[in-house]
């Protein structure tokens, strides 16, 4: 995978690829790139607003939108025509973006790979925390498991290949990195990524009216907190409270 520089905005030429007879992948590119992802998010919004009969749901990802449909309601050809007319030339202006502040406790039992990451890059753990919490991330995609958020924006100095030997289970709320990506997890999951820390924030909680905290396009900044603060916030989160804050930038 490669990240293109922000200046090399790719042309919004997209491909329509069949994903069986109930799925259509609309592919904007094949790399991790903010401009591409913003095109996908804009297109996804257009498709959902168009409310095309026969479309069941859409799955936005880094670089494509998978449109799942009922072929007895709309055929692949008719759907392609409808979708083609909705492909944006450029991303929407980013309005009303949510900027989240997510507390993280780094290292120790909370992030068992912090020392490893520091050593691999010849940094102190303090450097790693400063780099990781100093960056502004964007939610590129939610997938793999309910609420599992893939984040772009990891500082280049922290890029680390995934573990050769994935762990069978990692804690819910893990804040991790893998390759050039960062993530926040929601459930206990197997993972080959490196665990930097944990957040008490539940990105997925069925008790809430909106069970999913983050959405594609949201911006995230991590705020280091101590273990005592983690435990305090974790208790609040366990009772259903949202312990992350956001502001909306216009």
């Amino acid at each position, binding site marked *: *995978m490669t990240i293109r520089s922000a200046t090399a905005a790719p042309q919004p030429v997209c491909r329509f*690829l*069949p*994903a*069986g*007879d*109930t*799925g259509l*992948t609309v*592919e904007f590119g*094949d*790399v*991790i790139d903010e401009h591409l992802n913003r095109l996908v998010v804009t297109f*996804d919004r257009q498709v959902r607003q168009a409310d095309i009969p026969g479309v*069941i*749901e*859409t*799955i*936005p*990802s*880094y*670089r*494509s*939108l*998978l449109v*799942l449909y009922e*072929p*007895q309601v709309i*055929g*692949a050809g008719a759907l392609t025509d409808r979708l083609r007319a909705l492909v944006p030339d450029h991303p929407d202006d980013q309005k009303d973006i949510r900027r989240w502040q997510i507390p993280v406790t780094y290292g120790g039992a909370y992030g068992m790979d912090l020392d490893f990451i520091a050593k691999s890059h010849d940094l102190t753990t303090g450097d790693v925390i400063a780099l990781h919490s100093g960056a502004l991330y964007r939610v590129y*995609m*939610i*997938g*793999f*498991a*309910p*609420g*599992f958020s*893939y984040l772009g924006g990891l500082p280049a100095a922290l890029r680390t290949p995934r573990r050769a030997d994935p762990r069978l289970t990692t804690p819910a709320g893990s804040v991790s990195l893998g390759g050039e990506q960062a993530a926040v997890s*929601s*459930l206990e999951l197997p993972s080959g990524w490196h665990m930097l820390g944990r957040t008490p924030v539940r990105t*997925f909680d*069925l008790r809430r009216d909106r*069970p*999913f905290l983050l959405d*594609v396009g949201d911006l995230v900044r991590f705020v280091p907190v101590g273990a005592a603060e983690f435990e305090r916030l974790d208790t609040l989160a366990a009772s259903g409270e949202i312990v992350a804050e956001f502001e909306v930038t216009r």
Partner: protein
Amino acid sequence: MIDALIIGDPGPFATIQDLGRHGYQRFGVPVSGAMDGRALRLANRLVGNDEAEAGIEFTLVGGRYEVAAERCRIAVIGDFDLSIDGKPAATCRAHDLERGALVTIGGSPRWVRGYLAVAGGFDVPLVLGSRSTHTRSRLGGIDGQTLRAGQLLNLRAPAPSGSPCMLPSRSLMPDDRPIRVIFGPQQDHFSDRAAGQFLTNTYQVNPRSDRMGYRLDGPPIAPLGDYNIVSDGIAPGSVQIAGNGRPILLLADRQSTGGYPKIATVISADLPRLAQFRPGQEVRFIAVSLDQAAAIADQARNAFNRLCDKIAPLPANRPGDAVPLGVNPISGVAAGAAGDGDYDGE
């Protein structure tokens, strides 16, 4: 008193499933739902339910249930050994049972996944609009887990009055003919030769296969470039080529996104057929076009509708178990079923 089914033994792997949890894949929530949606829909129709109602999906062996209700109407789909109070009973028809009745569901010569539906449905909470169980993320069903001995499955409604219904055939045999695929979405990650190999290879279903995916054993296929792609959405039936070059068929419990190239996708009409493939069973693929797939889907839908039209109340004077053997209504390929086939068009 609460009306319920008591689980004596749920068999090796049983879960509550309906037709799936749609609309939340954008948040990473898998669809899940019945592996053999046609069989669950038939079971529901036999007991007078909406066909999307949740039932029990069991695997290889159905187990034992006891009726803890004044009256209860059930149906089992699949050619499994069924007995009620120790007496052999027919599947593919509804049975009215009284308090204390014991339902025992054994194995089947050909079926892997069977369905037990109860009139009125089970009192299982809706989670994000569905009762389907996704065990990996612990969503839906009973605490998001497989059914356990000793649990009570509460019933939402009393048994309906009127004669129970039957299908005019108990011969709903699974078949092992090739699985039809449409190439893509990442066909261009493979050479024409590799795509050809995929169609000529014979694969076996690896025993480490489950509701999430079937791993296939067979000659490996190499992509042109990297085994990894930038993750994108996964459609039902996606044929992913993993790092070892072996295909994985991504089924009901599949993750919503993934980072391996998908050489092809199984057509929707053949997903219920795959539900009945056993570990070790041979799998071959043939490619169809989108137009052919649309025609096949139409035929499958028409065949299913004709089958449903044949569901009728049991004649009052019939013991009910002596149901005539008929054509193969699910796949519609038996002699005399010309035009019923969902398998034409390749």
